[in-house]
């Protein structure tokens, strides 16, 4: 009972504090503090409710237990992170996004390909991942190669559609200007087409960061070596070590956010000229 009261008091206190900070003069430090405080108050509430209602850790472990497990299993978490994120997700992401980018340029070049390749891209995107993953495991083996292949399939279409849309973003007047300069196709693509497409391309890249991580984790459910985030999650659920499952979820959330954030930073540097980046 005490736990419930503590949780409630903690929640209300941090809420009141947040309201005060939010209403005071804005600063850079405060704009980080407010969401942090909100996150901590949620964790505090979680801890208090789980302890207060005596919820079995098999169903929902408290954050303190997850943190302890996280700290004590760093080597395992790192091994899983390398296997799933660095080997599976990142390599698949690079292969898939580059392939989609090159395909998009080919599509932009020729109307024939546009009518032929886009529907195929659409078709690949519609393939259910839980149907494709076991097939790809059979083709590419149990290690990270098959996981990368799943990621390629997942990221290809969103990247393709965004890049194709980006490459058609330039307008006729700009095209005419390039023509009056006597620019050839590649010159016009480099100086006009790609820069104009950048906001769209980064849109695709950002969407694909999270898709890549999801694809790499889910693909491990269908056969894997005995390491990797997806393997660990599915195995530890069976062993009722839900604290370990949540520790892996934390790693996935941190990795996914960092990956997305990195892409957003690169976007800011590359498309500084775009109205959405000027504030």
């Amino acid at each position, binding site marked *: 009972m005490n736990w419930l009261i503590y949780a409630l008091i903690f929640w209300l206190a941090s809420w009141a504090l947040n309201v005060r900070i939010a209403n005071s003069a804005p600063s850079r430090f405060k704009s980080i503090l407010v969401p942090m405080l909100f996150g901590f108050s949620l964790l505090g509430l979680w801890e208090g409710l789980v302890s207060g209602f005596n919820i079995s850790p*098999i*169903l929902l472990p408290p954050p303190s237990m997850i943190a302890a497990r996280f700290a004590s299993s760093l080597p395992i978490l790192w091994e899983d992170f390398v296997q799933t994120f660095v080997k599976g997700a990142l390599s698949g992401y690079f292969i898939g996004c580059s392939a989609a980018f090159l395909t998009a340029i080919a599509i932009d070049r020729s109307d024939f390909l546009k009518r032929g390749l886009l529907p195929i891209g659409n078709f690949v995107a519609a393939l259910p991942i839980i149907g494709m993953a076991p097939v790809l495991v059979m083709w590419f083996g149990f290690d990270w190669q098959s996981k990368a292949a799943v990621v390629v399939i997942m990221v290809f279409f969103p990247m393709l559609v965004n890049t194709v849309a980006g490459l058609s973003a330039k307008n006729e007047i700009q095209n005419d200007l390039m023509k009056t300069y006597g620019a050839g196709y590649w010159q016009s693509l480099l100086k006009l087409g790609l820069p104009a497409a950048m906001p769209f391309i980064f849109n695709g890249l950002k969407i694909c960061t999270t898709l890549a991580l999801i694809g790499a984790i889910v693909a491990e459910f*269908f056969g894997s070596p*005995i390491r990797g985030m997806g*393997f660990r999650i599915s*195995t530890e*659920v069976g*062993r009722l*070590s839900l604290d370990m499952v949540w520790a892996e979820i934390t790693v996935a959330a941190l990795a996914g956010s960092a990956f997305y954030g990195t892409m957003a930073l690169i976007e800011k540097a590359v498309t500084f000229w775009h109205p959405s980046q000027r504030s």
Partner: protein
Amino acid sequence: MKNMIKGAIAGAAMLAASMAQADDDVTLQLKWVTQAQFAGYYVALDKGFYKEEGLNVTIKPGGPDIAPAQVIAGGGADVVLDWMPSALASREKGLDLVNIAQPFKSSGMMLTCRKDAGITTSADFADKTLGVWFFGNEYPFLSWMSKLGLKTDGSAGGVTVLKQGFNVDPILQKQAACVSTMTYNEYWQIIDAGLTPEELVVFKYEDEGVSTLEDGMYVLGDNLKDAAFKDKMVRFVRASMKGWKYAEMHTDEAADIVLENDASGAQTEKHQRRMMSEVAKLTSGSNGALDVADYERTVQSLLQAGSDPVITKAPEGAWTSEITDAALN
């Protein structure tokens, strides 16, 4: 007035009817999808053995992403079927699972290997790739390997372990030298896929002395303190064992009953009839009561699992003969 009397009579009739049908509800969570591995329960349901005991039994099929222990912890079932290693491991995690009956006397678990991968005895495992099921099914394998002194982390001189999906592709495609199989299920998938028994070497956990108890009935210890629940379980175990013994005597009929109850429609008659005759070999040695010697052997094998034992100390109160004593008299 007339209508009111009519209504009252109808109400009384409905009440009487519902009282006559006031069977006790029992929900059973299976460990895997509907198949002849669980024939005894489906036979008991279909033949009305549960009904005779005044029980209204619901059978929930399992699947690759369903852990029976988690289902019972969340209140989704009264009884679950589980393998003892995973049940004892859950017990150490703080879930008070108690074995009330053990219809499977023998283990059906095997490691099936290709002869052309260079395996004839268990001494040939070193530096080979072996397929294993995880999700709580890996414990018997881990304790066997630790008994053989083989590391499972992929280091030289040990074995490389693959998390095998729920099919036998890795051995067909030579991605693994051996895969885990059950005598009644996956072994026959390999045979159906075209490999002959002569091309295979089979290591039965039973023969290697590392077998653990499979498919026992488990309930929460707290519930057993309730006399009404206990009485329900006595009737449930009695009817279930009647179902199992009937299934052993009439394997083809039992397999057909399982097929009728398979809502997924994924099972075939040939496979289920074959499975039922293999399962009958495993259940025929048990009358439902847990053999203490088997229990001790399971515990010892799990405790000895080398540097990474499945359980760290001998469990207490992990089984009770109370239910089977009352049910089987």
